[in-house]
């Protein structure tokens, strides 16, 4: 408890110092607002946006796109990965196309996705799903293939069905890799949503930041960026927490008992 309080105190002090230096630098170097807004103005933008309620529809929009796209993209990736691992002929047939699609930066597809799916939430969800898919797919395939072959042999000696080996042995073995993929995907989801909003949107944090550029309202932009940082932290923290709860057996090697 003391350590936590110490940590919090340290960071409150550090943050205050940094914000203080920020305000001071603006004053001393006469930095124009369009380069660096005053911390007080960012704070004002944040309070009117969050407390006043102006930002919440945008936050809700971006979060919906991220959560929806993340769920769809990751589940599709796991299912496809299972298919590729269990059906080698599928892997052989489709592998070159997977590699080709993988090599292309998904964000380049954003304009096309907007054309196909419109300006609303749907196109953002599609973008996020696409950007999550490949890291999850690769991690799941690697995880499934990394299953200890002796374990599979053991199960075969006891006449286990393919399904049983997949669900009881391969998937749990791959859990570590899968969650590593989820951690990557959650970060990419945010990028995907924001990029899609930059290309064309009427709502969302990306839209907020982008449209603030037109009026050079850097205070709004900083406020928007701050919200994104918080969202990113929440997302990755959540996944990391789930990772440690579900894959509870990883990283406990320091607690061995000797005979």
């Amino acid at each position, binding site marked *: 408890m003391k350590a936590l309080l110490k940590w919090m105190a340290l960071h409150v002090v550090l943050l205050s110092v940094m914000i203080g230096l920020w305000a001071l630098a603006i004053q001393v170097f006469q930095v124009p607002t369009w380069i660096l807004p005053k911390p007080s103005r960012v704070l004002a933008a944040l309070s009117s946006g969050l407390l006043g309620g102006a930002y919440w529809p945008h936050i809700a929009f971006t979060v919906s796109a991220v959560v929806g796209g993340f769920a769809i993209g990751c589940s599709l990736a796991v299912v496809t990965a299972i298919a590729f691992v269990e059906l080698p002929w599928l892997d052989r047939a489709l592998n070159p196309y997977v590699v080709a699609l993988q090599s292309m930066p998904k964000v380049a597809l954003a304009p096309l996705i907007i054309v196909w799916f419109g300006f609303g939430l749907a196109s953002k969800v599609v973008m996020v799903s696409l950007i999550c898919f490949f890291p999850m797919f690769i991690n799941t395939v690697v995880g499934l293939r990394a299953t200890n072959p002796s*374990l599979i042999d053991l199960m075969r*000696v*006891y006449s286990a069905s393919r399904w049983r080996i997949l669900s009881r042995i391969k998937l*749990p073995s791959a*859990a570590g890799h899968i969650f590593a993929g989820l951690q990557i995907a959650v970060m990419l989801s945010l990028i995907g949503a924001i990029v899609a909003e930059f290309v064309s949107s009427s709502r969302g944090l990306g839209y907020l930041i982008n449209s603030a550029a037109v009026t050079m309202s850097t205070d709004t932009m900083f406020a928007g960026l701050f919200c994104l940082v918080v969202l990113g932290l929440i997302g990755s923290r959540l996944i990391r927490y789930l990772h440690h709860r579900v894959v509870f057996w990883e990283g406990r090697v320091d607690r061995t*008992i000797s005979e």
Partner: protein
Amino acid sequence: MDVLRIEDLTVTYASSRGSVAALQALTTRVADGEFVSILGPSGCGKSTLLKVVSGLLKPTSGQVQLFGTNVEGPRPDVGMVFQQPTLLPWKNVLENVLLPVRTLGLDIEAGRATALGLLKLVGLLSFAEHYPNELSGGMQQRVAIARGLIHDPKLLLMDEPFAALDAMTREHMQIELQRIWLAARKSVLFITHSIPEAVLLSDRVVVLAARPGRLIEDIRVELPRPRTIASMTDPRFAELTTHLRELVSTLVTFD
């Protein structure tokens, strides 16, 4: 009746350099309650032999019979213990021992009672609720042995089960295994690279050569049981190990 009978077993693999004979015309057997070690250099087909006996690999030719019936595929009357414990890290010790029971669809309640009895036998009853990564290598291997015995197989196949342990734990485990084997009275087919280990544990030692894998000698170990570390000072022990060492040294080639 012989628990295991192998007649003229040949296993060839197709490789990029033509066909490779992993095992050639191997004939041997394991009698009821016997402890047989397979000793030989790398590449003598020991692991292939185990795969064929457990039904995971089909022989190219020859016959393998378990309890009088041909081995057509995996069957529940064999148990396996590998070099690595290969326990499921997400399940506790008791659940790991019960894995064959669940997979084979046997009665769980009866299985649970047997599992607890086996854990007591291997000396890990108080660790039943622990997870594998909380146990040392030797303890994990003991859990693997309990798991190998849970479904009451008549034949236990062990593929260098102590090779991954440090030397002291290994010696300790050898005596432990003998104690467990004397209590459970299973037939055992035991693969090892260690000559003293083979002589200490076995009723018979079968020596294989490599490339192609074939039987060189089948030696009976006439040392009284139960054997202890003290048995290693018995002159017959030294005789046997010396003979085996000389034999094996002619078989090991570094090419």
